[in-house]
């Protein structure tokens, strides 16, 4: 069905450029030479950190860890190879040691070291390309849990203060990733549950709205709405809104309760009170006139 086409690119392609691997796990890194002549490739371990201002991974050069030390943390089945034109090679990458607060990965350098190729005449600059394959551990550790915050705000569309007079509530979900080295893949839902906890009166799936990952020190907000379609007399009382967010396999729950006085009831009470007040006033006026 899918007419396979050649990738619409030239140069060198690496896949996967991003992978979820647990400590001591490994993966196959495929390096493809899309060009028309052979290329030399070298693999090195590398460290990455997350930007504090935007979802972005930054390549860093660690001053504390030497390259040879880094290479002990991520190893390769072969670290230097020549790729013929149009060919792919697979290198097994093994993630052997964690560097706290950082992401590890492989740096694929195309053309490697050009010193021998420069002829030493005039002023020359050798140009190299590098591609990063980043390893991301998904499993949350115990220490990660307190750094992750999930919030739920419930605001009636028609209400006085926190009292819901209508049948709709606006929901605002916020997920904050306070970790430095975990990328969160969120999914979840919000359930509206009746006062006795037996009846689900509505639900909102958050998964499609939370499309995408949450990077370290980043947060994500999602707005949604739940409508309570029950008759107004069944809406009197409390409704619970239960938010279930799943992050990298761990579930985080948040619950909010909203008190409902449907506007039909509120209006009825208002009318009766009005009648009593007006009646009392009129009664007093008549009484005064008689006197």
């Amino acid at each position, binding site marked *: 069905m899918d007419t396979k086409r050649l*990738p619409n690119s030239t140069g060198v*392609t690496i896949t996967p450029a991003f992978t979820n691997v647990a400590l001591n796990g490994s993966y196959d890194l495929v390096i493809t030479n899309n060009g028309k002549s052979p290329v030399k490739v070298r693999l090195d371990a590398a460290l990455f950190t997350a930007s504090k201002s935007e979802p*972005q*991974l930054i390549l860093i050069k660690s001053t504390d860890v030497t390259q040879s030390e880094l290479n002990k943390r991520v190893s390769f089945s072969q670290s230097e190879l020549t790729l013929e034109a149009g060919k792919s090679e697979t290198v097994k990458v093994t993630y052997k040691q964690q560097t706290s607060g950082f992401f590890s990965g492989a740096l694929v350098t195309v*053309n490697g070291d050009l010193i021998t190729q420069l002829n030493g005449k005039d*002023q*020359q600059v050798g140009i*190299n*390309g590098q591609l990063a394959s980043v390893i991301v551990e998904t499993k949350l550790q115990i220490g990660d849990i307190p750094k992750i915050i999930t919030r739920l705000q419930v605001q009636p569309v028609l209400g006085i203060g926190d009292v819901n007079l209508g049948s709709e509530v606006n929901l605002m979900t916020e997920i904050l990733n306070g970790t430095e080295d975990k990328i969160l893949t969120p999914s979840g839902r919000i359930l509206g549950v009746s006062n006795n906890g037996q009846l689900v009166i509505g639900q909102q799936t958050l998964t499609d709205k939370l499309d995408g990952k949450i990077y370290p020190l980043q947060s994500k907000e999602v707005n949604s709405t739940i409508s309570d379609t029950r008759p107004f007399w069944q809406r009197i009382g409390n409704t619970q809104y239960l938010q279930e967010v799943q992050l990298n396999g761990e579930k985080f729950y948040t619950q909010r309760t909203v008190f409902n006085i449907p506007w039909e009831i509120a209006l009825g009470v208002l009318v009766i009170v009005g009648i009593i007040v007006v009646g009392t006033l009129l009664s007093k006026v008549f009484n005064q006139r008689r006197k």
Partner: protein
Amino acid sequence: MISRKIFSTISLVVIVLFLAVTITPLTVFAQAQELTSTNFKILDPNIDSGGGAGDSASGDYSLLTSLANPTSDSRATSGSYAYTSGFPAGIMANVPKIICAETDTIAGSNCTYPNANGAQGECGTPGCYDRAKIEVDHQNNPVDTLYLVKLTADVTGTEYYLTTSHTIDTATPTVANNYMTICDINGIDGRTGSGCTPNTDWQSTNLRGLVPGTAYFVQVRALSGNFTETNFSDLSALPDFTTEYPSLSLDIDIADSSGSAAETNPEYVIDLGVLVSDIVQTAPNRIWLDMNTNSQTGMTTYVSDTYAGLNLTTGSGIIDSEDEDLDAPSGSPGGYGLKTATKSQTALGPILDVGTNFQKVGANEVGNLTTSPKGIFQTNTAGANQGMVNNGRASIDVKALVQAANKAGNYQDFIYFTMVGTF
């Protein structure tokens, strides 16, 4: 006294009105087994077997029934329909078909996309890694027919159903969670009466949350009215599509300023030629970078060098790389650096400069190279930007200046462009 009576009457009317508003009408339920109730009576519970017109004695109505005649139904001409007689099967909808299922196509693909560059124009190069595009052929079923899309992973055999949020799920499908119209699935339905508001998101990719590097089979079934659900469409002999992996591609070309389409082979060397004192030298050739990714969040290309300047090949001496206008050099003698020149892409992106690191105003103003990586180009998702990019290409000028204080001799440096994706 009269006023009191009027007041009492008004009060009574208001209370009656309030009660009328708040009390809903009573509903009378009759069980199917019952032929009579307090409100109605069924006189004759028998229904004729049909096969023609059953006229009433009064002539007030005709009960028309018919056994279907497949040959007179233009929709029922292939082996892809099913007709089952008798209640509750009735006549079924036609079995729909999958028109296309794609992840990595380019221009001229079978699916119709908002862009002209196929799946790679929607997901970046080399294609979609956790998304795909399918189109369902309604096979002339009515516009309100609902369709259920099933995916089967090739190796594991796991069955998934497309949900109304366009993710896939293994849960047992329900009408509310999984069945959609052609408009909801394809993002467009131009038929009269469809009432379809086109959705370019679903015209772009309408399967989300797929596993990278996985082959899938796709099938679809139709439901038009109760009890009329078709079988799934035929299973293809080979998987209908395979998802790509998160990918990065980088190509370097060395060519002059007219080389926007140039393709050159390694080794990649920029020759600055002979540097003349106090004259800014721009290398005759530019560095051209082809950058492609299917990263939905974007990528950053960093640049670093070996010496933080041009280094003397014999003896010691360096022309420092400085963030400066080489026409008015400051700091250490001479200077050397990069200045971005052009940026383009076929689709998505766009390719952007990273701040003003190397995007300079002056003709000979350059950004400095350091041994630590500095961002030079990026794609991101700010505003209407898309992280993925299809055929991104950018060029960079290399500029240098020597002054009398710089030692004579040959200088060299090694520049590294490093592409990092944010997936």
